[in-house]
């Protein structure tokens, strides 16, 4: 809408009667007069019946909207003006049960085969069971041959994994993203929805609001949804104390299982009014021009680029050894690996925050999978399967790195559990995945998602076997595996691990954080932690697959200014 359109809309809204929905809530009996989709699309709620005529409270009443609302209600209506947030709160109150169901089951109802509400299907159980029986039987009958096959498979997958990552880093390092530097006029900027799921984040809320206010984007074109669980009294109270303006809207998510971030995001997504939607976490500090960059990039890219992943890193990276290694990990991931996936145009598992979407596409693919604990990674794969593309955005969001081992383990095991869920979901029908993502996408998925899981689980085992054989004498190693296989295995293990260390050291190069580079030499210790998290994740996947382990924020003594 241009400036003249906005002005005429405001004039038009002023000419309508205003209603206070907080003091005079809508009549619950009118909830079914219009369907939920129309209410949300046109921003209205059936309010009262006065003298036999239906009165509608509408966020932006106009003559054009009057016709649409009348058609949706199938009877003559009178429009009244009300604040947008109040209208959406009223719609939410009227349709809470339906919204809750949709937030949880929208994907499961529409695409049951792509939803992680079942961890493993019957067919997968049968295939894995048969493979396990064959492997066990063969191990009893031909132990040495089986050991050689196992070693060969592990070495081959290990080698393929490291080579693929090196390829990604090489391609990602060559990606010279040149975003359109055209600064769009404020009037040309669209409404932008920001979803911020919050759970027990009272401590970081003031800093979050400060970071969102610091965004270089017209405040009246921001539709900020602070998504809060209904039973999180502490955060709700903290929010009430902040006295926020109309661009902030608190969406209260009623209690229901699974209690996951994607479910909360799905719930709030129904109220998103922006052309584009971005997810931020409570502790995020996005660079102020990130939304402008995203709009310019979306405008420059073809329509099928429906998601932009901004880069993430940490403002408290220099807090301790763990945060330094975490920063190296993130630098490699977001500055090289994801741009590499982008360059190769293969499925990209999105990072947990700062994902910018075309809102219409997000609605069309039924939002996030509420049962997947890395819903963002899963969403990236689903986008690719639908012919959509995710690209990287050259703008950084600074987060708070978990600075204690316990907290880090919880977070990392949730991520790996989510990767396991994602791999299992998309491998329910491997041929369909091949058809949708193409051969390159299929192998990239196996190496990037499957390879991450496998290397986390196998790395300590391989080193233990290597050291045991080494202690027993290398002749035995060659004797058991055969000379050629022993060479291949050793090459994969030693060269592969050295390359992984090297890539970790290379990670901070793009940002010029070379003071972190020497810490890359200690990456093997960090991998031990990752392996511990992987085994914990496997156990959690069996015990409670949808459980969301909350990461504590606001515990760092570092401030964003130090980033």
């Amino acid at each position: 809408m241009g400036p003249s359109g906005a002005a005429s809309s405001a004039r038009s809204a002023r000419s309508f009667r205003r209603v206070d929905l907080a003091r005079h809530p809508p009549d619950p009996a009118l909830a079914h007069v219009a369907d939920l989709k129309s209410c949300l699309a046109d921003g209205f709620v059936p309010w009262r019946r006065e003298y036999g005529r239906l009165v509608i409270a509408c966020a932006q009443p106009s003559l054009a909207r009057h016709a649409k609302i009348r058609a949706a209600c199938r009877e003559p209506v009178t429009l009244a003006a009300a604040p947008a947030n109040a209208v959406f709160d009223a719609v939410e109150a009227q349709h809470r049960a339906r919204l809750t169901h949709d937030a949880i089951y929208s994907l499961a109802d529409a695409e049951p085969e792509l939803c992680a509400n079942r961890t493993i299907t019957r067919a997968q159980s049968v295939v894995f069971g048969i493979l396990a029986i064959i492997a066990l039987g063969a191990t009893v009958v031909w132990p040495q041959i089986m050991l050689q096959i196992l070693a060969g498979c592990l070495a081959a997958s290990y080698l393929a994994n490291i080579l693929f990552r090196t390829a990604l880093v090489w391609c990602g390092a060559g990606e010279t993203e040149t975003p359109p530097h055209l600064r769009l006029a404020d009037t040309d900027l669209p409404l932008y929805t920001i979803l911020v799921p919050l759970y027990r984040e009272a401590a970081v809320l003031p800093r979050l609001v400060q970071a969102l206010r610091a965004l270089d984007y017209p405040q009246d074109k921001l539709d900020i949804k602070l998504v809060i669980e209904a039973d999180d009294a502490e955060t709700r109270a903290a929010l009430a104390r902040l006295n926020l303006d109309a661009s902030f809207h608190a969406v209260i998510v009623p209690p229901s299982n699974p209690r996951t971030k994607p479910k909360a995001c799905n719930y709030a997504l129904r109220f998103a009014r922006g052309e584009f939607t971005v997810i931020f976490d409570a502790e995020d500090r996005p660079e102020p021009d990130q939304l402008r960059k995203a709009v310019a990039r979306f405008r420059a890219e073809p329509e099928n680029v429906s998601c932009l992943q901004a880069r993430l890193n940490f403002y408290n990276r220099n807090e301790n050894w763990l945060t330094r290694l975490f920063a190296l990990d993130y630098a490699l991931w977001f500055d090289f690996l994801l741009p590499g996936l982008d360059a190769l145009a293969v499925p990209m598992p999105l990072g947990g925050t700062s994902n910018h979407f075309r809102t219409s596409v997000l609605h069309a693919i039924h939002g996030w999978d509420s049962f997947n604990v890395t819903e963002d990674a899963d969403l990236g794969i689903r986008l690719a399967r639908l012919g959509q593309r995710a690209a990287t955005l050259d703008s950084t969001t600074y987060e708070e790195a978990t600075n204690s081992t316990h907290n880090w383990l919880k977070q990392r095991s949730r991520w790996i559990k989510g990767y396991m869920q994602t791999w299992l979901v998309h491998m329910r029908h491997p041929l369909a995945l091949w058809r949708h993502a193409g051969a390159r996408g299929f192998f990239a998925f196996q190496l990037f998602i499957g390879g991450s899981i496998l290397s986390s689980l196998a790395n300590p085992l391989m080193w233990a076997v290597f050291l045991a054989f080494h202690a027993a004498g290398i002749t035995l190693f060659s004797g058991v595996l055969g000379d050629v296989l022993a060479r291949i295995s050793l090459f994969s293990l030693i060269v592969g691990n050295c390359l992984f260390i090297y890539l970790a050291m290379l990670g901070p190069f793009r940002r010029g954080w070379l003071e972190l580079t020497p810490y890359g030499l200690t990456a093997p210790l960090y991998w031990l932690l990752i392996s511990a998290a992987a085994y914990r994740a496997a156990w959690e996947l069996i015990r409670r697959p949808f459980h969301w382990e909350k990461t504590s924020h606001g515990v760092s003594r570092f401030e964003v200014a130090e980033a």
Partner: protein
Amino acid sequence: MTLVEFPSFRRAQGALPFFIGMLSLFLVVLYPLLPDALLRIFASLLLAALFFQSLFGGGYSAFHAGAITSLSFAQAGLFVSTTGGAGSIWLALASFCIAMTAADFVRHHDARRVMALGAALSFAQGLDPLGGLLALFLLPLCVGLPRSGETRDKAGLFALLLFMPMVTAIVLAYTRQNLGADLSLHPNTSPSAAMPLTLLLCLCFASAPTLWLTTLVPRLKHPAGLITVYTALALLLAVTLKVLTGTPPDFASLLGAGAAISVAALCSWKPSARNQSLALAAVTLATLVSWLLFNLPFAVI
């Protein structure tokens, strides 16, 4: 234009690490079985392709690039190394790769060039006995050339560049001592063959004091050309050290490496029409001189 900027190469770039990885694995497993002549032909063709591509990509016409490449191979060192008469083609390949990637890194200073330089430095370890020494001498210059940055940043860059050649040296020494398998192309003359692992490590760390050289660097104006000259000096120093430790000099290899470095130097020269003709004349002269130099020791003896 560098190799990585070629359109066809850019399209296939995702497959490059796989190609290199498979080639490395192939060499690790099958190298002992491959005949020496086959490896020499492979190395010669690779070096010729690199010469031509670097010159052509650097702005030389196809005629000049082809002529300089041919004349370089007509020089004594490369000629006898290629035909198997004496010496080794590998030192030339190692020197050229290091000089080109180092110059490229100094010009662009991005992550891809870091990887390429690291790979070249470690590749040199396995290619020729002097490769490791070359790496040690050249590293400080590469670290020092970026003009800005604090000392701790330079330490990070140094660690980043040193890591790959160091690990290669350790892996080569480890496989030789513990697996009885020598993965380098010159098992008998490699300095690491006679050295225990600990000594090799000490040698790597001992290179750190040479960082003082970096204090000179900010005053230099043409880093790419300088790197090639420096590579030649480093090569001479490495050869001197080798002679001092009792190994007889290998003039053919040394002359071959010199030819390769001179091509690297020409690549960093602005190739105007006049300069291209001058370059051709210089390489022609160098070819004649190289044969004189090659025969000089025999004449003296």
